[in-house]
């Protein structure tokens, strides 16, 4: 009997992956972040129209540790990170797994600009030489990286303006097929200032309330991370949850209980910013792997 060759041939990638996770932990510990673990099985997730949870005996597997992480911020923890597995039903593609590894970190007393700098520093600790090649694209990691507003990205790369795309309900298509492949192609790009209706948990820009303080990080066309200045107004947060939950129910999705503990404790949450980064995609980028399958030992199909 020979060993399973499909598993054996992944050894190099798995060794690289383990080193990346180790570097990430050292990076945050050195900056006085507390590593925490929060439950994977929860009564409900933050309702979002397009993210579906896996059900688990009447509860759900978490789609992100976000709500628990913010309750810890509200209880007075200033800097937190978590490296955990998350589940999103029916997401499977060359860059998606229904069970995947997420890195989230949160900082109080600042807005999302600090997270952009931390992304730059994190990549610097993972790739000190300041250069990487992904699928033939040479990427210069020298800071500062590009900051591009969503509206400018539509003007520069899209077949129509942001306003037109929203009016025609084609935002997701234009972003996915026209804009994303061209983002971060020489230098990493922070796509910033999302329309506020596309950011259920983000704070509105203080001067321009039609945009939210949300960014996504792209390198070599790979979407790596999503970040916010956190919304800390419990009244506005409750209303946004009601709206998102209504659109979930209209689509026939199983209802989530309203996260009352979270909403109550949000009143004591200080100004904060938080980010979710897909670890599998980061490993793809750093190991020049074309598909997410190459950077995990097991895909669902191999089980």
């Amino acid at each position, binding site marked *: 009997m020979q060993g399973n*060759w*499909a598993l054996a*041939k992944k*050894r190099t990638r798995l060794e690289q992956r383990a080193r990346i996770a180790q570097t990430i932990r050292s990076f945050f510990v050195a900056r006085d972040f507390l590593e925490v673990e929060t439950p994977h099985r929860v009564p409900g997730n933050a309702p979002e129209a397009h993210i579906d949870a896996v059900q688990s005996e009447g509860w759900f597997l978490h789609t992100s540790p976000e709500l628990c992480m913010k309750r810890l911020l509200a209880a007075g923890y200033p800097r937190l990170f978590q490296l955990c597995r998350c589940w999103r039903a029916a*997401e499977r*593609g060359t*860059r998606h797994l229904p069970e995947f590894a997420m890195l989230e970190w949160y900082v109080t007393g600042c807005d999302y600009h600090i997270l952009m700098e931390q992304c730059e520093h994190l990549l610097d600790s993972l790739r000190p030489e300041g250069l990487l090649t992904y699928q033939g694209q040479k990427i210069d990691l020298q800071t500062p990286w590009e900051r591009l507003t969503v509206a400018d990205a539509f003007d520069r790369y899209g077949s129509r303006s942001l306003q037109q795309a929203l009016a025609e309900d084609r935002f997701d298509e234009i972003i996915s097929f026209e804009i994303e492949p061209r983002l971060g192609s020489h230098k990493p790009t922070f796509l910033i200032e999302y329309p506020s209706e596309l950011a259920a948990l983000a704070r509105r820009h203080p001067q321009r309330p039609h945009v939210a303080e949300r960014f996504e990080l792209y390198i070599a066309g790979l979407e790596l991370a999503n970040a916010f200045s956190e919304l800390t107004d419990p009244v506005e947060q409750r209303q946004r949850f009601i709206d998102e939950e209504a659109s979930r129910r209209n689509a026939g999705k199983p209802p989530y209980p309203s996260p009352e503990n979270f909403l109550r404790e949000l009143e004591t949450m200080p100004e904060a910013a938080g980010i979710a980064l897909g670890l599998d995609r980061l490993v793809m980028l750093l190991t020049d792997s074309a598909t997410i399958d190459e950077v995990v030992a097991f895909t669902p199909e191999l089980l």
Partner: protein
Amino acid sequence: MLTCSDLRKGTKLMIDGEPHVIVQFDFTKPGKGQALYKCKLRNMITGALFDRTYRSGESFEPAALEERDMQYLYQDETGYVFMDQKNYEQTTLNDEALGDQKYFLVDNMEVKILMFGERGIGITLPNFVNLRVTMAEPWVKGDTAAGNNKPATVETGYTLQVPSFVEEGTLIQIDTRTGEYVTRVKE
């Protein structure tokens, strides 16, 4: 009816009354956005290829095609000839209908042929096939690291990645669904 979650490489759909098969598939989803299902479809009658993107919530009519158990006989200038083992009727599939699967056909192999009316338009092979390696780099002594690989060509002309210990003359098992090496066959 099928929904978007049924879409994958190999799914067969009826579009405008003709059967189509998904030959390339990717799921994509911009951050916080809706799922998009990017498909390359092949019209199973005309062979025409085209791209189409579906969004979650759409539904599809499955292509209800009859599958018949047949045996592979031989290849001639008209294509690949199969015979129904119940009534001895023969049907011929062309190169296009077989695609890369032609590399996994072995004489007398029992397969399922997809029928659209009286016409064979597709094939389902057994999941695994054994083929002999006809060309491979020699094994470098001392290279025992698990997971090292190299290219090899098998008797049908198909080239794939194999572990370094596989040599010319070795009989190997290939997964016909992925085209990948599975194991060495003991003889």
